[in-house]
């Protein structure tokens, strides 16, 4: 604290910095509020989707295992070769508070049509196939939403740190510097006035 030079220039500079800091603080506070609002929307969606998928994915996996047990791995892989060319979703980005977050649009799946022959496949495979294809758009959405939540929570933590640093460290520090400099300057002024009065008295006698 006592390391600054108590000069007018320093005072002016510190005042300028203080006004910048408090403006930044206000902006960051606003950012924090808006992010919290957005975050709530995403985290709710995240939880709902996660619940749904946790409930459904296990049973779909179960069906697939049954299909594999009935048909054998090789036959199963052969049957699924065609679906390897299934439509892929498109991955894009959208912005939240100037952060790039993922956005995935699932391509329209073939409306539940089955792309393999029925002759050598088990009906268990049909069930698994339909189950996973119904789930896939949800999985993509969950991927995007959960990533957004991850990124938002990291960013919010960073913002909170910054806000706190400004509020509890930077701003009080600058305020006390300003106080110190003003006090010192006033002190100097008083002492020079006194000195002048003294000299004037000496000259008169």
């Amino acid at each position: 604290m006592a390391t600054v030079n108590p000069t007018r220039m320093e005072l002016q500079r510190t005042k300028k910095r203080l006004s910048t800091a408090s403006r930044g603080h206000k902006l960051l506070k606003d950012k924090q509020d808006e992010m919290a609002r957005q975050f709530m929307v995403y985290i709710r969606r995240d939880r709902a989707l996660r619940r749904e998928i946790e409930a459904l994915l296990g049973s779909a996996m179960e069906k697939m295992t049954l299909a594999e047990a009935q048909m054998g791995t090789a036959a199963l892989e052969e049957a699924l070769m065609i679906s390897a060319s299934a439509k892929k979703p498109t991955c894009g980005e959208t912005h939240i508070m100037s952060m790039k977050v993922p956005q995935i649009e699932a391509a329209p799946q073939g409306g539940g049509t089955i792309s393999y022959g029925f002759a050598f496949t088990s009906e268990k495979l049909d069930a698994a196939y339909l189950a996973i294809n119904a789930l896939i758009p949800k999985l993509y959405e969950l991927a995007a939403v959960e990533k957004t939540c991850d990124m938002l929570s990291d960013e919010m933590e960073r913002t909170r740190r910054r806000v706190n640093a400004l509020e509890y460290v930077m701003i009080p520090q600058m305020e006390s510097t300003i106080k110190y400099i003003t006090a010192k300057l006033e002190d100097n002024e008083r002492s020079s006035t006194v000195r002048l009065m003294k000299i004037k008295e000496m000259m008169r006698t």
Partner: protein
Amino acid sequence: MTNAKIAAVGRHESVLLFSAAGIETVFVNDSAEALSAVRTLVKNGTQVIFLTENFAAELEDALRKYRQNAYPIVLPIPEKSGPSGYSMEKINANMEKALGTNLFNKE
């Protein structure tokens, strides 16, 4: 907007299902294999990777760097044996990190 590269990484019985949806599947047996699989996939430009929860939990530290950017997304999915609660835990952790408290506790 580009067509996405998607992959699923996990034990055979858990990710076999994804091949029915036209998703590239990588079968792994332990977390070291899973990590190297994820790394290769990311290097090849895969945007979304479904990774089973048990591996995601074990590799949490190694996968943390993928949190920063929009892509790649490494999404933990439940195993065949059922959800382990890891993903829900993660959602709650995010919540606490973001807001300082968990608002869902009371629900």
